[in-house]
């Protein structure tokens, strides 16, 4: 709750700031309309249009984060262009602000219409964007003012005379893009169940490539606009378009990978070795527990993969275990099944690093002398698997309490205490442990394994 209200406060203050700024600049512009040439107004119109369209073409980064490299590049180029205009600061800035807000409104409307995102998230992104664009404008204008009158850059051995200016623009847009991502990160609500937000370094390592291309692309658009004119602005965005396509393909690839893994995980369900949905339920629960334990995004992806595949060893059985409940069979058989699953994974190059996790999933906590012998992911899967074997999709809250009691009896002996505590936390937060938990929310939670995963 605390995090949510803080997010709301950031967005609200940015929103108030924007509204005040728009009103002030509109009243300023109403007194004296800037005297741009027709080409100047055309440039502004084209930038606004490109900005709006680019913003509405969003790429999903996975886990609900979207970016719009095209829109951001167009917006930054717009800011650089207006900063070079050299009219009075207030009127150039005012025009930039008014048209940026206009473009943002159109983009938010388009995104919302196409069923994209929630209003709050759109509002928050829109205000962040406006602040960044205006900031870039002010900073570049200040840089230009600081130059000596009549000062000219000279070229070096290989770089031409204008390269210092271009470099300054690149550094500026790079800084602006960095601020944009940091602001977005700071104002995003943390995922449910996580003790902390995804770390900033995790976040930036995901987006730095897109950010770099966006920053450089914006500079190129601004330079080309100055040289060849505004009519081909969308064409100058080509490198950013290619990058956007690359990111898009990457995201699609990740989605397809997830579906593929789940299909493999279902092999044991098709063959009747495990109950339907077991693999994906264990995976979803494992990820929730992993989040409470503060595992990183990368580790969570591996945990999910290992959990989906944890029962694959059962295909080697000649007869299915009743209900597929591996926590009910003897410890020796559990060990053997886990080793079988690990053996299958070890045969494929890049799953082999998970083979250890999967083959150690049955190791009882008490025999773990050094915790390195049983990776955390394996201990999480062991608990999640036991829970699903005991409860499955059953809606009875009493059964759930008894099941949790049974697992807690094995704490320190069979199960890792920290993991079981995390399980309890997850179940409590989802309202699955209270008699009222037979209600609609619990049913939805039990039926939808992907919810919040």
């Amino acid at each position, binding site marked *: 709750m605390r995090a949510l209200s803080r997010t709301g406060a950031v967005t609200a203050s940015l929103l108030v700031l924007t509204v005040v700024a728009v009103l002030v600049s509109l009243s300023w512009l109403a007194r004296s309309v800037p005297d741009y040439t027709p080409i100047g107004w055309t440039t502004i119109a084209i930038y606004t249009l490109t900005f709006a369209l680019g913003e509405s073409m969003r790429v999903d980064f996975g886990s609900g984060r979207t970016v719009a490299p095209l829109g951001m590049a167009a917006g930054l180029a717009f800011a650089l262009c207006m900063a070079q205009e050299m009219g009075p600061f207030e009127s150039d800035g005012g025009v930039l602000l008014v048209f940026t807000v206009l473009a943002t409104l159109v983009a938010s409307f388009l995104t919302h219409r196409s069923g994209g995102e929630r209003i709050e998230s759109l509002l928050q992104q829109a205000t962040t964007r406006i602040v960044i664009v205006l900031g870039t404008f002010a900073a570049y204008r200040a840089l230009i003012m600081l130059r000596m009158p009549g000062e000219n850059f000279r*070229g070096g051995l*290989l*770089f*031409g*005379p*204008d*390269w210092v200016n*271009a470099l300054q623009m*690149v550094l500026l847009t790079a800084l602006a893009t960095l601020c944009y991502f940091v602001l977005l990160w700071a104002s995003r609500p943390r995922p449910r169940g996580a003790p902390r937000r995804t770390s900033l370094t995790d976040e930036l390592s995901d987006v730095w*490539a897109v950010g*770099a*291309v966006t920053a*450089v*692309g914006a*500079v*190129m658009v601004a*330079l*080309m606009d100055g*040289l*060849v*004119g505004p009519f081909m602005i969308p064409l*100058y965005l*080509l*490198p*950013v378009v*290619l*990058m956007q*396509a*690359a*990111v898009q*393909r*990457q995201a699609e*690839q990740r989605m*397809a*990978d997830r*579906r*593929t*893994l*789940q*299909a*493999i995980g*279902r*092999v044991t369900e*098709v*063959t*009747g070795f495990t109950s339907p949905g077991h693999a994906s339920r264990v995976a979803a629960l494992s990820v929730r527990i992993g989040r409470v334990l503060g595992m990183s995004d990368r580790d969570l992806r591996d945990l999910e993969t290992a959990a989906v595949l944890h029962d*694959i*060893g059962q*295909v*080697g059985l*000649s007869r299915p275990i009743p209900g597929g409940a591996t926590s009910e069979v003897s410890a020796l058989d559990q060990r053997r099944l886990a080793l*079988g699953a690990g*053996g*299958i*994974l070890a*045969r*494929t*190059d*890049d*799953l082999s690093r998970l083979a250890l996790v999967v083959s150690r999933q049955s190791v009882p906590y008490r025999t773990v002398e050094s915790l390195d012998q049983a990776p955390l992911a394996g201990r999480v899967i062991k608990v999640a698997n036991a829970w699903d074997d005991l409860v499955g999709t059953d809606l009875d809250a009493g059964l759930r309490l008894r099941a949790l009691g049974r697992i807690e009896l094995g704490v320190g002996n069979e199960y890792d205490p920290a993991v079981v505590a995390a399980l309890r936390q997850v179940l409590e937060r989802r309202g699955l442990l209270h008699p009222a938990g037979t209600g609609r929310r619990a049913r939805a939670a039990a039926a939808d394994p992907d919810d919040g995963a």
Partner: protein
Amino acid sequence: MSTRTHRPQGANATRTRLLIAALAVLALGAALLADRISPGLELGPVIVLTGLAVVSVSLPTRGSRGHIGPSLTPVLQIAAIPIGGAAAGMIVGGVSHLLIVRRQRLSSRLFNAAMHALMGAVCGLLYVGVGGMHGEAVVLTSVDILVRLGLPLVLAFLASALVNVAVLALRLGWDRPEARRAFVLSTLPGLRGQLPISVLVAFLFAVLWGPGQLELFAAVLVLGPLAVAHWTLAQDEAERSSQERTVRTLVATFETANPYSVGHASRVAELCRRLGAQLGLTAADRETLDYAALLHDIGLITASPSPRRSATEVDLDYLAEITQHPAAGVAILEDIEFLAPALPAIRHHHERWDGRGYPNGLVGEQIPPLARIIAVADAFDSLTCSRSHRPPLSDGQACARLRERAGSHLDPGVVDALERVIAERPWAPTMLVRVDDGRVPDHDDPAVSDRYADWSPEGDDAPAGPPAASTQPVPTGEVD
């Protein structure tokens, strides 16, 4: 565009040398002519661009699947003309392919260098011929930039692509005009997508370098983002070649479930690889065939009849149960997107040419071509493995056995291909000898197929297509 050259054979070597010499002379002539029309060569930029081109041409290229955007070498070559002068394109193209850092046969290296030199020279000639400007340090209007830089670049790029296709076609089909035509027809459509992007990148690069007065810094602005986009994709591919991984996991799972079939999938896949090459399948079809061959029996995980220790003969219970496995395999795999093209081949790999196979009783050409290939490979592998009731057959015996079955059980065209494949190189797979496989009936044995054909309930799923199709067998997907 691929500039890989084919291996010259025997007498072809002389022709290749002649071709290389002719290309080189033509390139020099065109470049000299271009330089006379519009003289001036700026050495500094040319050296820098050549260096960049050597780096970009030497970087490992990945499969076409992961490719996005233009390849940088042609962009550098074309952009060199407005930056460095009319003859710069020839120098950048020729020298970069001459100095490429890669183990390569000398004749390939020389051929590529000569071809790219000619491409660059023709570009330069055309560029200055239509009034393209270069190396002028005057401030230009935007109309100037478009008319005297943009338009000539477009034309130069078109010419370069055409020269590339023409030379490769000449090299490929020296005495085969129809192959030449097929090559040209198959390459030209691919240019449509690649050309505009390459021209645009070269245009941006040249404008920022010259009129933009950035010179080498233009490379940071234009080539930097492209390199990052390439890297993004390449990194993802390196991190997870997920399709391979998926298939291998599935095969491993299957072999865990059916220990006596260890190696069968990969042997059939290897045979199918050879058959696919022999039948001239497209690259996409060969990949699909590979996946289908590796996974064709995956349904046995679900629909695996328990082997009866007493039964020496294949009984009807066994037959009834074994017919479920193609559909069961499809059920397991149908959620995996990239395997979708392989599903028909998996579903129908036990159909028979005479329409008496399972599951659908398809006849002749109704059977998906890839399924017919798998059927032949499957039967061949079964015959060349040892069984309790017989020793393994030799390659020749197995081929003879399959020859008898061409037109009834198997597609004659594929059997022909198999005979050619085996004649070329004997089939010598590594086989694990298992002592306990004798009691397990092998559902791939042609005898089992015959049992099914004799038993199969007539016409339950059989389509009404005339069996006459089987009298005129046509090889699958053959190009020559």
